[in-house]
């Protein structure tokens, strides 16, 4: 495996009495797409949010591009956050802003570009997610699938080196979910970014992943290629796959 771009070392996290992560160790190589697979409430999103400094661990470390982010304050995290884009489960588009302003947000904040150049980049990333002519629409005018695509366009606007996907296909119909899966795959190929996809959708995991990390009860129970995952006899993973009709 190539040099890890993102690394989780013995990560522990609890919320009150509820223990969510019990010592997660996982390396994500540069340019690799790793799917963190697991049932609901197993700590997948919590793991992802640690990468962006949205949660602070009780113990353990998270490294992004050679920097230990768990040591950083809000202001020191800005550089890491510019390097890593994140797609939230429900998109988290800014309700009060048009699609254009949502996608242009990070460009306005961090590039100092003139508006024509910003507009050009907005058009470019919207076409990457196969959307055109939606710049003037408001988030409330968009369907679930379109919202995810606009959110993805916003996440890649600054040309990040890694993209984190939090349940990208949840709440979508099978056809739209498949479109999003293909989009993740094509973005990974075209942009060559490192990707972590958190999902409980087995079909999605097998479609987009180079590697599968199976998270259950706060621990990684399996870490291997998609082909290895399909034939793995690891008890927890087997149960999960059989439960999803992949036995």
């Amino acid at each position, binding site marked *: 495996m190539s040099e890890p771009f993102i690394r989780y070392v013995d990560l522990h996290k609890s919320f009150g009495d509820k223990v969510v992560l019990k010592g997660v160790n996982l390396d994500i190589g540069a340019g690799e797409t790793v799917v963190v697979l697991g049932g609901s409430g197993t700590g997948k999103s919590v793991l992802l949010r640690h990468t962006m400094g949205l949660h602070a661990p009780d113990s353990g470390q998270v490294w992004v591009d050679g920097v230990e982010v768990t040591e950083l304050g809000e202001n020191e995290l800005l550089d890491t956050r510019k390097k890593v884009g994140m797609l939230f*489960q429900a998109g988290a588009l800014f309700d009060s802003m048009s699609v254009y302003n949502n996608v242009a947000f990070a460009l306005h904040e961090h590039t100092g570009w003139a508006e024509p150049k910003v507009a050009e980049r907005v058009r470019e990333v919207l076409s990457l997610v196969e959307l055109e002519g939606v710049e003037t629409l408001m988030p409330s005018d968009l369907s679930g699938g379109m919202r995810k695509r606009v959110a993805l366009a916003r996440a890649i606007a600054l040309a990040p080196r890694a993209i984190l996907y939090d349940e990208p296909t949840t709440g979508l119909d099978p056809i739209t979910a498949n479109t999003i899966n293909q989009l993740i795959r094509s973005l990974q190929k075209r942009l060559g970014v490192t990707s972590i996809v958190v999902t409980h959708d087995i079909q999605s995991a097998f479609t987009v992943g180079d590697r599968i990390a199976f998270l259950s009860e706060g621990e990684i129970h399996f870490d291997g290629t998609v082909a290895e995952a399909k034939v793995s006899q690891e008890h927890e993973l087997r149960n999960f796959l059989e439960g999803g009709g992949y036995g």
Partner: protein
Amino acid sequence: MTGILRQNLSELGRMVLLLWESIRQGLRRPFEWDLWMEQLFQLGVRSLTITNLTVLFTGMVLSLQTAYSLKTYGGETFVGDIVALSIVRELGPVLAALVVAGRVGAGITAELGTMAVTEQVDALRVLAASPVKKLVVPRVGALLVILPLITILAMAMGLFGGLLMAKYEVGQTSAFFMNHALGALTVEDIFSGVGKTVFFALFIGIIACYNGLHATGGADGVGKATTNTVVMGSISVIVSDFFLTKIFLMF
């Protein structure tokens, strides 16, 4: 009991930290004037009708009650003095602040709370922007500017209400009422009345933003946070009014 006290003190501490971070971010370039202007309109201009109506009718009822009470002692001529001092020193600022705590404070918490539970606040952080600079500074800043101005206008409306009743119910002339009203007021009275609203604006703004940013648990959580803001905002205005009045009376 000590648990509740510790929790309240801990919340108070976090609000002070939010205030400190707001000051730091507010002094940092760029100043985001467009966000300020939007909030000045949303929080200020749209509050004018309700604050003016509240203080107008309070001035009217105060004038009526004062005239009725003083009639026994033949003191009706002092209606203008009492209405002016009550409205400018106390009722104008406190009523305007209470109305703003309800209307604006609830609005801020509901908006920021919805953003928090739909991960829009996290999205701001992930896009390497500061939620304090983008959301808190323009709202608290706009409140600091607008509440004193709203209060001055509300005071004028309160005096106008008092004048209307003095003229049509008590039988005084407008000039007589205004001579007494303006004669009773000093610059210190106006300074004390308007000065308090700067502190009220700060308390309402920080409480509303804090509750919004810390809302959890979907619509139920946003509802509870909004109720909390109205209660905490109103109590902070009423309690701090006593201490601020004591302090202003020293000068």
